[in-house]
């Protein structure tokens, strides 16, 4: 394989990774922007979504499209339950309390998953992940193309939703001033609920898209949360499009570093870059903005 084809392949690989991080990071940024909540259990949404997909596709033998819709539906319900049980209680509290409570949730979910599902990684290969598109020495799995196309559609839709719909506008309003929202009659609890359901759903969609490419294991969520957070912080706290852009940057860096520098250190490299970005621009790559 030529060095150029190899580089292109790594770039595409990075874009897929970036798309995954971006879908998780966008949900995190939404929660942070709208509800002022740092959700350290967000990677576990992805993990549970992946297992829901595995259950539907591998265990129940459902066709890919149906299994791929089932997982987000399950996670939307999970997001709603999470909002009612944990989030509602910690929303008015300090961010220390929020961070520790969601970190605790993450620990509980991860270890319950280990107890129930075991530590053995699950593989969920699909027809698309096995079929390879080859263009002049350059090879890519169809599943990766699906991830990229789906991610673009999702981010476009999310942007329209936040910009155009009544609920989307209420979400933007909440990210700017909660009290003013109550004063004009926005049902703050309902909008928070929608945000949580949406974020959990996004994480699950990401899981159904990339699970055919990677293994599924119980503690995959922690590192994912961290990287998504790195993207949220680097993208300018709670600014959704910034988080998405930073996610792609991290994905590409990681793919290139993993391939050309050291595979073992690729996770560390993403963090070193995040810290470097923050030292250079403490307000994030795209400036700290008010609102989502």
């Amino acid at each position, binding site marked *: 394989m030529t060095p150029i084809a190899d580089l292109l392949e790594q770039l595409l690989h990075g874009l897929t990774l970036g798309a995954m991080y971006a879908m998780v990071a966008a949900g995190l940024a939404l929660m942070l922007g709208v509800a002022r909540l740092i959700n350290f259990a967000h990677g576990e949404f992805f993990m549970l979504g992946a297992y829901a997909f595995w259950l539907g596709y591998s265990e129940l033998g459902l066709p890919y499209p149906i299994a791929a819709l089932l997982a987000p539906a399950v996670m939307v319900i999970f997001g709603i339950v999470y909002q009612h049980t944990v989030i509602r209680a910690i929303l008015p509290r300090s961010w220390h309390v929020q961070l520790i*409570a969601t*970190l*605790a949730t993450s620990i509980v979910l991860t270890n319950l998953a280990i*107890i129930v599902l075991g530590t053995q990684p699950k593989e969920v290969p699909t027809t698309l992940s096995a079929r390879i598109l080859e263009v002049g020495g350059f090879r890519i799995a169809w599943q990766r193309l699906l991830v990229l196309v789906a991610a673009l559609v999702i981010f476009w839709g999310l942007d329209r939703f936040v910009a155009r719909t009544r609920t989307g506008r209420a979400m933007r309003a909440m990210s700017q001033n909660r009290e003013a929202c109550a004063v004009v009659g926005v049902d703050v609890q309902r909008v928070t609920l929608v945000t949580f359901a949406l974020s959990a759903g996004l994480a699950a969609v990401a899981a159904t898209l990339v699970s055919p490419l990677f293994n599924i294991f119980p503690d995959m969520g922690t590192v994912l949360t961290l990287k998504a957070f790195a993207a949220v912080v680097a993208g300018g706290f709670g600014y959704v499009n910034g988080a998405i852009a930073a996610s792609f940057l991290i994905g590409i860096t990681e793919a290139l570093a993993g391939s050309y520098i050291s595979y073992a*250190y690729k996770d*560390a490299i993403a*963090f070193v870059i995040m810290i470097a970005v923050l030292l250079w621009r*403490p307000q994030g790559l795209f400036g700290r903005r008010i609102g989502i």
Partner: protein
Amino acid sequence: MRRAAIGALAAVVVSAPWLVAALVPRQQRYVLHVLVFTALFAALALSYDLVVGHVGSLSLAHPAFFGVGAYTAALLATRAGWPFLGALIGAALAAGVVAALVGVPLFRLTEHAFAVGTLGLALVASVVANNWVEVTRGPLCITEIPKPVLGVPGGPALAITTLPGHYWLALAALAAVVLLYRGLTTFRLGRAFHAVRDNEPLAGAAGIDPLKYRLLAFTIAATVAGGVGALYVHYLSVMCPEEMTVALTVNLLVIVFLGGVGSLRGVLVGAVLFTALPEVLRLAPTWRLVIYGTLLLLVVVRSPEGLESLLRRAAR
């Protein structure tokens, strides 16, 4: 009254090896082992509380400093053949220097970003411990770390070989950390730390340099963590990368937040409860984490100041 109670408690704690021998002769070794762990974790948790409870910076990097200390001591003792005290001091200094170096850029981050940045640091440290095989031997662990020998080269030496010996050494270390903790968190220094924690801009108007005090607490805490790491590896004779994972952060958070943030008594009670109890109950690590997580969730959601405030409320 209070003095008498503290004196009695101290007597019990110091004479614990004999009490254990008299009360549970068949479990003696195991109980003493748990007590050594408890004392070391209490010291580590107190150092963590200096940062989290007193200057109010939610650092998640403590395992990294513990790890730097532990590996430094392990390497100095095995490869360089340093005596115990030398390795202990070297480990504490190494952790402190690392903290001072990373602290300057990290404290440019505020609140959430600081938490994420420190968590990233902990992750990087753990990745390095696993992968820098030439130095850390990675998952193969550094083994055959000698037992501590107190004394200076040439002078009389006291080798710590028995479990009671390890216990008293750990207890002495804990006592030193308690004194340091009290010295730092009360009177004028404590007030300056608390001022920075409560209202940073106003602290500036009061003539306090917030960054200086944050860095001070962070560096001292890391130095102590490094020292505890050295004691830890000299006790266990082995150091593995698993000792410095995020699970340690969770342990410390549980001890500090369930015990009582910013309270000497709370942190000590938390350390006893959450180090000794799970050991005694012989919980599997996964179940322990599930129970910890649930407890943490419940206590943090219901009572933000931890056991300390629960105790106070119960006493009323």
